[in-house]
């Protein structure tokens, strides 16, 4: 008895995505470019744990090309980040805010977001944001 021919079982199957990927023709999120798009740079905590006393964004806002600088108070209506499993009311107090409010809890925690017309300007402006912890 001859086995029915099956080209999928018992051998490696070539991936459709490989030829474009090895040619550099993949399209990734970072390749998206729209006219007049804004660029965001996140300002992060240098402290592992501490109370936020003050955040000064004035110098960053004053830089030409900067469109907005957001801190927690600017996005108070954005809820904290739910757990991957979805909404679990008992865990609500333990969710991480999108931007740190009152307290930072790890080095690298997002504290402010700078938006500018140019990514280099956004980075310059993020350096001008000072966080007193």
């Amino acid at each position: 008895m001859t086995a029915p021919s099956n080209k999928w079982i018992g051998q490696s199957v070539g991936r459709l995505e490989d030829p474009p990927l090895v040619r550099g023709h993949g399209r990734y999120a970072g390749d998206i470019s729209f006219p007049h798009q804004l660029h965001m740079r996140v300002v992060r905590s240098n402290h592992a744990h501490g109370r936020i006393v003050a955040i000064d964004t004035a110098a960053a806002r004053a830089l030409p090309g900067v469109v907005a600088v957001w801190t927690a108070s600017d996005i108070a209506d954005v809820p904290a980040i739910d757990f991957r499993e979805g909404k679990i009311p008992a865990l609500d107090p333990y969710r991480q805010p999108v931007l740190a409010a009152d307290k930072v809890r790890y080095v690298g925690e997002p504290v402010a977001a700078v938006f500018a017309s140019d990514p280099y300007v956004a980075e310059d402006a993020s350096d001008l944001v000072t966080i007193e912890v």
Partner: protein
Amino acid sequence: MSEKREITLTINGRSYAVRVDPRRTLVDTIRDECGQTGTHIGCEHGVCGACTVLLDGEPVRSCLMFAVQAEGRQIRTVEGLAQGDKLHPLQQAFIDHHGLQCGFCTPGFLMLAAGVLEREPDISDEDLLDVLSSNLCRCTGYENIVKSVRAAAAKMTAARR
């Protein structure tokens, strides 16, 4: 801010006349001004190697160079590896040995390996490991990348004989 400079970059044999800030990195210029998005940006500070391109044959991290430094040099990127429909032996080997999954780090690995194998076709396994350890991949666990480059090296050596 300092004045923009007019420079001409040569990428895969083609000239691109661009105007850039002196501080603009080579990788941003290759991707945004020249539209060659095959070269990727991973860490932006020289750790991951996703942005590796060849500059006069030498692998360099294009996030650590300014575009103005590359004027007059021959830049090669992943888009220039294949000859028309014919893939470079390294590209074919990465497909054959499953040397990629998401493909984000692949252009950097391909250019790193291409530069090294052109300079040192008979590179020892130990030295090859040392070279490949300079780039990061989060998918494959490296084993298949090493396998791919070894296979390509063998094929390229056989083709020369």
